[in-house]
């Protein structure tokens, strides 16, 4: 059973079509990347999955059926619009939100205490939320997403406004949660973050699903017949097997597109035969950014 099944959902806001016939599945225990540029319809998709919006057409199944109040307790959601009650103490705010997720008073108290210690927020728990820094509030929000030990975690733009230390912390937590068997949907426009984490992805552009599948397979599919090489030596453009060579911006890295009949092995041999010294030789896997640009330039996009 898939954790989430999204079937042909469409949604308009007035004249503006936010989603057109989008479908994807999220499998249990995976980190699923919901990708796309700003305004592509990622947040709208999540809001429809969570029953905040009703789709104009199409069906969403969560845990094998329509979402209901009991299922909401199995979901942890970190919305893109971060928000906590500003005017009450942090501890009280978290306890209230946890109680709404079905935790008993003592249970939520214990778990929140553990999380506060883990996130270095223990000494701030009596402060009003508005007195905390942005980063602390971000961490507090993450506590309220995870405190009820949800089976499904949906996080929208988790890395926005996080410094590198906290970004790493969030990534570690996501991995940790996946290892615990949780299903995670991560929505972001920062594609490079997804590459490290996601198992499968869907790429949405202008409300349409343009790419969907296993990340490795997608990358394979879009991988050309190219290599990356780092060398101080000069490689002439006329070198055998090279269809195209491009110098990368940094250092002495080159991107080389090979003639289709030349295999990577053969090219490596001929480089060594030509006595070209290199520090790195690597089959070029396209980054998601590159794939994304490739895909949207095919489907067309308007950058505002």
């Amino acid at each position, binding site marked *: 059973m898939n954790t989430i099944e999204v079937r042909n959902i469409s949604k308009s806001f007035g004249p503006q079509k936010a989603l057109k016939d989008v479908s994807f599945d999220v499998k249990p225990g995976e980190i699923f990347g919901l990708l796309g540029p700003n305004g592509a319809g990622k947040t709208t998709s999540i809001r429809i999955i969570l029953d905040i919006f009703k789709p104009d057409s199409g069906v969403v199944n969560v845990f094998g059926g329509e979402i209901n109040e009991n299922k909401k307790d199995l979901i942890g959601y970190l919305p893109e619009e971060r*928000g906590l009650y500003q005017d009450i103490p942090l501890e009280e705010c978290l306890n209230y939100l946890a109680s709404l997720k079905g935790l008993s008073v003592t249970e939520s108290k214990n778990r929140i205490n553990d999380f506060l210690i883990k996130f270095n927020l223990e000494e701030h728990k009596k402060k009003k939320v508005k007195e905390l820094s942005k980063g602390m509030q971000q961490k507090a929000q993450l506590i309220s997403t995870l405190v009820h030990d949800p089976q499904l975690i949906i996080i929208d733009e988790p890395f926005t406004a996080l410094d590198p230390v906290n970004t790493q912390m969030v990534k570690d937590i996501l991995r940790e949660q996946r290892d615990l068997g949780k299903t995670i949907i991560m929505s972001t426009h920062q594609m490079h973050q997804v590459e490290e984490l996601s198992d499968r992805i869907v790429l949405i552009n202008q409300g349409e699903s343009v790419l969907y599948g296993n990340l490795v397979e997608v990358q394979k599919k879009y991988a050309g017949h190219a290599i990356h090489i780092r060398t101080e030596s000069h490689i002439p453009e006329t070198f055998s097997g090279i269809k195209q060579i491009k110098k990368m911006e940094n250092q002495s890295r080159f991107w080389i597109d090979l003639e289709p009949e030349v295999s990577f092995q053969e090219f490596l041999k001929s480089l060594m035969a030509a006595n070209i010294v290199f520090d790195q030789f690597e089959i070029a896997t396209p980054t998601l950014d590159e794939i994304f640009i490739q895909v949207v330039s095919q489907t067309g996009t308007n950058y505002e």
Partner: protein
Amino acid sequence: MNKIWLVIKHEYLKHVRKRRFILAILSLPIFIIFMIGIGFISGISQYNSAPVGFIDHSKLLSGATEYNAKPPISFLKPIVFKAFSDENDAKIALNQNEIQAYYVLEEDYFQTQKIQVVANKKPDSDVNKAFLTFLETSVLKDVPAKISSRIIEGASFEFKSTKENKQTNEDNILDFILPFISGFLFIMAVNISGSYLLQAVVEEKENRTMEIMVTSTSPTQLMTGKIIGNLSVGLTQLIVWILFGILGIAILFQLFPDLQKTHIDLSFLILTIAVFLPAFVMISAMMATLGATMTEEREAQQMAGIFSLPMVIPFWFIQVLMEKPNSPLSIFLSIFPFTAPISLPVRATFANIPLWQILLTILILILLTIASLWLAGKSFRLGMLRYGKKLSLKEIFTQRP
């Protein structure tokens, strides 16, 4: 269901635990106690408990030598009336400040009806009244007590209109005052609860907590919890005030025994509650709707006045409601949902209202209450994720969430 309770508890405690709320709840009783206290102090400071002398040439006081007048406030010292045999003794006593005044009852009192008062400073009218009571009691001492007390206390006039077929006792001050007080309290309670509710709805937007909330509860549960929670805050305030009021009235009754004749009509209370409750929820739900369409608290507070205005309209037409309770204007005011909570109880005090009008009023109120709750729920769902953009009335009716 459990989650509604959690929301109610949170919304309720959030306000009730604040210092601001406790101050607000105490401000009215403190103000009233202050006012009563001032009235009291001025009453006591003017009260002269020095004895009063009298010289009875008419023999109407039948040789009585002393009489204790009933004091206006029960714990004050009664004024003692002392008999003097001749005016010179009385004059000396007056000059030595032993008495504050003396009354001279001439032999021909029955012909002249004149009582002479001699004093350095004109005594309080209450002292004159007390002396008259003393005189009446003495004259009527042979008449059976029942009859004499009836004569002394006088009659109480009951107003019975041939047209309106409703009785109002002039002595029953509460009959007159109650609709006003309850109307006033109603407006207070609606404003307090309404503004709390407005705040509570806009707050979700300002704090951007809406998404977390509706993915933890349903929007309906959340809205229901918020409405009940915040109405309870207003009700708590109201109940505390009413308790203080009852306490105050009880004290007044103790101090001013004359008030004890008044009573509160049960049917009036039932009618008032039957109108107040749905109106209370209706107006609060409308405030919530307003809150859901607004994006900032300040803006929402300014708009809240829209609902207070029609509620106070009946006070402008209070004379019409009292004097012509069955005129078309009065009937309209008591049926129109916004003016009904104040108008209907006032009208009911001064006229017998046909049952169908009462039922119609309550029915319209209940229907409108349901409609406003629905509207509040819908605009809440539609408006909850609109940041910085107002929701128009047209959108509420035409758009799907």
